[in-house]
């Protein structure tokens, strides 16, 4: 029997964009166990809810994560609107949908770039991020910022976007589509990518379900679970199918995200076609009292915001369950048995967002 040693991996590691920490129990070059520990960048954002006005906290909720920021802000607003039973104007819901999908586009392009970078495919990384800039420009011109949009508020959104601008965004995305297809064809067909990712870090369908995987991790293992189907915001009026792969390996997770780019473009086009005229926000008076679970689909999976309020302007409890946190369990499972050199790629394949996971 070979001797076991423990290699600390992270929080600082050259290939990691996020400070995840794993103690890898190794036998020679093979991982036999991985012990995650979290809390390195805990900021106590959930506790802060007791000190801030519930209407202002949306800007803090957005800053839980720097990539899926808009969806955090939107889910928090859904929770407050759910407690107060606010009739949010439909145009605001459609705009939220458009911005959610633009966020998903930029998040997936960022991740595809990082994935290419982690396997040493630098030019693919640069091409992914080059295309991401177009999406970020659309976000900045309509919301005022590139990644922390700060455009959602309780009862609607802060800015309207003209129909002309929305049509320009759709036209811009249609120009982007062939370029994304080019990019995707590299991820799908290139031998380097396939050789590096196929059969690596497999999570079976049963494991993904039992361990509570979320988002692309679940969908890459053959489970068609997409919270957008429950129809929050304007998703109930849009037509889409979750992207599902069955292999459950890193390659399948890459494919799911690459294909979701096109789902997002379709959803934006549909939303812009159907968007109604009208106001984009409403006057919110009074304070919330009660509790609510709001769920939505982030680029990384299902996020849950639980909010409890007691009728004052400060909330009593705010709890976020982020997709990265639940995806750590499938990650630990699929790390067992792989080689040390594959660890960074497998860790990245769940799209870890430790900022989200530790708040």
């Amino acid at each position, binding site marked *: 029997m070979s001797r076991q040693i423990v290699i600390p991996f992270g929080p600082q590691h050259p290939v990691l964009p996020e400070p995840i920490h794993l103690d890898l129990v190794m036998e020679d070059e093979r991982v036999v166990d991985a012990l995650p520990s979290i809390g390195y960048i805990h900021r106590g954002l959930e506790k802060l809810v007791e000190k*801030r*006005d519930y*209407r*202002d*906290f949306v*800007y*803090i909720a957005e*800053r839980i994560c720097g990539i899926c920021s808009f969806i955090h802000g939107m889910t928090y607003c859904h929770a407050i609107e759910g407690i107060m039973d606010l009739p949010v104007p439909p145009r605001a819901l459609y705009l939220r949908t458009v911005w959610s999908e633009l966020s998903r586009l930029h998040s997936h392009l960022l991740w595809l770039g990082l994935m290419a970078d982690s396997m040493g495919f630098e030019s693919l990384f640069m091409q992914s991020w*080059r295309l991401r800039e177009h999406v970020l*420009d659309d976000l*900045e*011109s*309509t*919301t*005022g*910022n590139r990644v*922390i949009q*700060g455009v959602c508020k309780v009862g609607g959104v*802060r*800015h309207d976007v003209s129909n002309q601008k929305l049509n320009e965004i759709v036209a811009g995305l249609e120009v982007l589509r062939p370029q994304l297809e080019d990019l995707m064809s590299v991820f799908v067909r290139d031998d380097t990518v396939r050789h590096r990712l196929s059969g690596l870090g497999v999570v079976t369908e049963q494991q993904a379900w039992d361990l509570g995987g979320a988002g692309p991790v679940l969908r890459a293992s053959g489970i068609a679970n997409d919270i957008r189907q429950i129809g929050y915001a304007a998703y109930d009026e849009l037509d889409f199918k979750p992207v599902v792969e069955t292999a459950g390996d890193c390659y399948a997770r890459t494919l799911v995200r690459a294909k979701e780019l096109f789902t997002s473009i379709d959803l934006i086009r549909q939303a812009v076609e159907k968007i109604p005229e009208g106001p984009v926000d409403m006057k919110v008076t009074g304070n919330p009292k009660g509790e609510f679970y709001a769920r939505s689909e982030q680029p990384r999976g299902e996020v849950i915001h639980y909010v409890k309020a007691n009728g004052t*302007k400060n909330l009593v409890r705010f709890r976020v369950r982020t997709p990265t946190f639940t995806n750590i369990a499938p990650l630990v499972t699929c790390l067992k048995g792989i080689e040390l050199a594959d660890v960074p790629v497998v860790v990245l394949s769940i799209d870890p967002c430790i900022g989200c996971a530790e708040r």
Partner: protein
Amino acid sequence: MGLLTIAKTISRNVFGGPVTRRYPAEPANRYDLTRGHLAFEPENCRVCRVCMLRCPTQAIVVDREARTWECDHFRCITCGNCVDLCPTDALHLEPTYRSPEADRPGKEFHEIPAPPPKPEAGGETAET
């Protein structure tokens, strides 16, 4: 076919110019909505303190007695909440970014001029 493709790619890369913007020779993208930095106009301020009370990061400190307004730009997240709430348009967002600062506290300090004397002075309201 492969050679033709690679020849096209090479010629595009050699003669096509850079994809990225030549910053700072070419200015960065700015839009009307871009939230660059917070700007304060003391002459419009009525010292109602709503910006201080509703700031999510407590970056703004307003002193009613001393009639001063202070913003810690290291704390400010440029969310624009104060701009939306300000009843007298004393605050607005500029699309340009502030130049980098290395030393704390990085505070912006303003003295608010006293309002012109009026026969019937309007009461100041503190909205919470």
